[in-house]
C-alpha cells in the first residue's frame, strides 16, 4: 500500500518523451528476412538534459542470392552512421545551433544518398526501401524511398505519411486503377525508386509532429500489404504499449497469410 506523504517509485518510461516498440519477422512464406530495422534511442535525463533524440530505420531489401538483406542492412548502417556523425555528435557537442551545423533535412538527404551510393557500389543489382525517422523532441524528420510506410495514429485517426514509390501507386495516382485493384495487382511489388539505384535518387522528406498520445508506425509492405488500415488503426488505438502494438500487428499479418517479411516499429510520444 502506498504511504501518504512519501514518494512512490514510478515505473518510468525509458525516455522522457518516447516509448519505442519494434519487431521484425520472416513471415510464413519467405525463407529469409530481407527486412531490417535499426533503432538508436538515447535517454538523457536531468535538469540540464538536452532534448530527446532518436533514430529509427526500416528497410526492405530486394535482389537474389541474399543480396536483399545485404542491401537493406548496408543502407540502414550507412544512414545511421551518417546521421550519428552529422547530427548526433554535434548534438552531444551542443553545436547543433551553430551556423555550420548541417540542417536536418540536408543531413537526412546526405545520409540516404550516401547509402544509395554504397548499395549501388557494393551490392550491384540489389536495392532496398528505406524509411527513416529522426526524432528530435516532439518532431520526426522522415526520409523515405520505396514502399515501406510511415503512419501516424493520433486522435482516433490513422494517417499515411509517406507515399509508395511503386508502380501501382503511380497507376492509382494517375487514376488508371482503383485502390482495390492496386491491392491485388500482380506488379504491386515493383518499385520505381529504391536505395541502390545509383544516379538521381529522389528522396522524400516529411516533417511530422508527434503530439502527446500519438503513435508513429514505420513498417514494411509485409505488414501493410496484409492488413487493411482499419486493423492497423485498431491495434495502434488499443495496444497498451508500443511493443504490444508491434507484436499484435505482426501476429495479425501472419494470421492474414504472412506472405512477406513483416517489420513494425512504433514510436510513441508520451507526456512527461
Amino acid at each position, binding site marked *: 500500500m502506498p504511504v501518504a506523504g512519501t514518494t512512490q517509485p514510478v515505473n518510468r518510461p525509458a525516455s522522457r518523451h518516447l516509448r519505442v516498440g519494434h519487431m521484425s519477422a520472416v513471415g510464413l512464406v519467405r525463407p529469409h528476412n530481407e527486412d531490417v530495422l535499426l533503432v538508436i534511442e538515447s535517454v538523457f535525463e536531468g535538469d540540464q538534459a538536452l532534448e530527446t533524440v532518436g533514430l529509427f530505420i526500416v528497410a526492405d531489401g530486394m535482389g537474389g542470392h541474399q543480396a536483399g538483406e545485404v542491401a537493406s542492412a548496408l543502407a540502414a548502417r550507412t544512414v545511421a552512421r551518417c546521421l550519428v556523425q552529422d547530427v548526433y555528435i554535434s548534438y552531444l557537442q551542443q553545436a547543433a545551433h551553430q551556423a555550420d551545423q548541417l540542417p*536536418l533535412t540536408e543531413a537526412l538527404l546526405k545520409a540516404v544518398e550516401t547509402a544509395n551510393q554504397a548499395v549501388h557500389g557494393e551490392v550491384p543489382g540489389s536495392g532496398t526501401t528505406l524509411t527513416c525517422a529522426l526524432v528530435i*523532441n516532439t*518532431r520526426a524528420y522522415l526520409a523515405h524511398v520505396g514502399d515501406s510506410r510511415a503512419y501516424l495514429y493520433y486522435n482516433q485517426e490513422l494517417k499515411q505519411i509517406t507515399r509508395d514509390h511503386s508502380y501501382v501507386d503511380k497507376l492509382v495516382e494517375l487514376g488508371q486503377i482503383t485502390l482495390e485493384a492496386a491491392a491485388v495487382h500482380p506488379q504491386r511489388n515493383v518499385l520505381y525508386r529504391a536505395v541502390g539505384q545509383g544516379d538521381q535518387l529522389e528522396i522524400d522528406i516529411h516533417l511530422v509532429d508527434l503530439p502527446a498520445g500519438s503513435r508513429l508506425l514505420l513498417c514494411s509492405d509485409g505488414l501493410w500489404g496484409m492488413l487493411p488500415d482499419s486493423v492497423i488503426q485498431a491495434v495502434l488505438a488499443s495496444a497498451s504499449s508500443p511493443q504490444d502494438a508491434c507484436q499484435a500487428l505482426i501476429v495479425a499479418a501472419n494470421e492474414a497469410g504472412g506472405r512477406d517479411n513483416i517489420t513494425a516499429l512504433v514510436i510513441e510520444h508520451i507526456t512527461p
Partner: protein
Amino acid sequence: MSLDTRQIRSSKNVPVGGVDGALAPGRVLQDRYEVLGILGLGGMSAVYQARDRRFPNVVKLCAVKEMKSHSLDPQMRQVAIQNFEREANILATLSHPAIPKVYDYFSEEARSYLVMEFIEGRDLEAVLGEMTSFLPQEQVLEWAIQLCDVLQFLHDHTPPIIFRDMKPSNVMLDKHGRLRLIDFGIAKNFQPGQKGTMIGTEGYSPPEQYRGIADQRTDIYALGATLHHILSRQDPRVEPPFSFHERPIQAANPAVPPDLAQVIMRALEYEPDRRYSSADEMKRALVTLRPPVVAQYGARSTANIGSGEVMPLWTFACEDEIRSAPALANGVLYVCAYDHNVYALNATTGKFLWKYATDGGIAGSPCAAEDRVIVGSDDRVAYCINAQTGRIMWTCPTQGRVRSSPRVQFGHVFFGSDDRQMYAVNLQSGRVSWKVELEGPVRSSVAVGEDLLYVGDEAGSVYCLDIRGTIKWRYSTKRAVTSSPTLDKELQLVVVGSQDGTVYGLDAQSGWVVWRFRTGKAVISSPCVVDGVVYVGSADNNVYALEAKTGRQVWKYATDGQVNSSPAVINGALYVGSVDGAVYSLDVKTGTIRWRLHTNGPVISSPIINEDTIYIGSNDRLVYALPA
C-alpha cells in the same frame, strides 16, 4: 514682462553696437558656453549665440537665453525669476520636432540662463519682410498644419500649455524647411478660470486675452491672426484691433482659395466659442484643403505589363520616405514615414485623418491593436497612440533607436531596440514588464507563437524566448539577422533570413536547423509562409518560393533591384516591392509576373493586404492603394 526676443534684423528696434549690460563676444559662461554674438534683445532678456566648448573639435552652437532683472523691487525680481524658471521647466519636458530642445539651465551673477538648441534659419516675420510678393498659399497651408500640430501638442500637455504668443516672429523656419516655435517666455500652464495679467502681443492676441483669460482657443485666434498676416501681408499691429473680419484675406490676396480663408476666419472669431474648439479640429479642416496628390508614373508607365495597367485607387504623400509596411485596423491605414510622422488615413479613400510626430525618423512598421497604434522611432522611444485621435497614450524610452516593428500579443507590446534589449511592455500602462539583453542591436521584429517569441539580432542570432523573457534556444547564423522571423504554426517551423545570404528553417521548439536555402546576397526581407510555401526576397534581386518543409526552391523571379521588401500573398497572387522602384504582383504557383507598377523611388516598404486592396509605400514618399 515681455521676453520679446527674436532674430536680429539689421534695422529696427535692436541697438547696434554697445548694448547696455549685454555680454560681450568671447565671454564664457559656466566655463563652457562661449558667447559669439547677440541673436536678439528684449526688455529684460537677451539671446546669445554661443559655442559649447565641451565639443572642442567641432563647433557646436547653442542659443543661450539670458534673463536679467533691473528691478530694485525684490518682489518683481522674484516674479521675473519665477517666470524664467517656468519657461525652462516647461521647455525641458517638451519633446516635439517643432519645439527647440533645452540643454542646460543655470544662474550666474544674478542672471539666469537657459541653454537651448540653436536653430539655424529665419523667423517668419523676416521671411515675410524679404518677400516682395505673396507666399504660395500651398506653402502657408502646410505651415498652418504644422503649427496646429505643435499647438495641439502643447494643449495635450498635462496640464495644457497655452503658448499665448503665436506670431510670425516667434516661428522659425529652419534650414530643413520645418517650422520651429521659439520664445516660450509667456507660455503658461492653463488652469481653467484663472485670470492673469495681459501678456501677449497686440494685434495677434484675441480679445479675451486682454481681459486676462487664455485657453486653447486663445492660441487658435493668434494662429489665425498669424496666418492672416502671412497671406494678406497686412501687419495686424498697425491695423485697428480685432479688425480681421473687416479685412478679408482674399481682398488683399485673391490667390487664396475661399475655403482656406474660411478656416482662418473661423479661427479669428471674436467669441471663443465660435472658433475651432481645438487645434486638432482646425488641423483637420486644413488637411482637407491639401491638393490631391497624383502619382507620377512618368515615361515608365508604358512598361506596365501583364493584364493591362494597374492604376492606384489612391495615393497619399508623406513628407519623407516610407520604409516599412503600413498597418490596417478598422478601416484606417497607419503609415510610418522617415519624416518622423505616423499618419492615419482612411483606408478606402486615402483621406488624411491625423498624424503624430515623433522626434526621429520611423523605419519600422506601426502596429495597430486594441484601438492603439504603437510605433518605434529613431528618437529611441516607442510610442503608443490613440488610434482614433492620434493622441499620445504612453511612451517607452529606450537607449537606442527603435527600428524593430512592435508586435502586440498577451496584452503586451514586444519590440527590440538598438540598445540590444528586447522589450515586453504592458499595452495598457506602457510599463516595461521585462527586457532581455541580446548580443546585438535588435532591428528584427518579433514573431509570436502560442507561448514563445522569436526574434533576430544584428549579431547574427535567432532567439526563442518564452513569455517571461527566458531564452529557450538560440541559433547562430553568420551575419546580422535583420529579417523578421515568421512562424509557420502548421509545420512548427520558424523561417528567417540572414544577411549571410541564407534563408533558414528552424524547428520552433528546439531551434534545430531543419533546412537552409542559400541566395546570392543578404536576405533582409522577412519571409511569409502560405500553404506550405515560403516566399521571400533577397538582395540578389530575386523573389523566391521555397517548399516550407524542405527549403527546396519552387520558383524564383528576378527583379531589377534588391528585394528587401517582405512579400504578402492573397488569392494566388504575391505582392512585393523592389529597389528597382516597382511594386510587383506575381502568380504564386508559377512565379510569373501578373503586373508591375513603377513608383518614383526604391520600394523597400512591404505590402499589406485587405480583401481586395494592397497598401504599400515607396521611397518616393507616396503611399499607394492598389487593386489586388
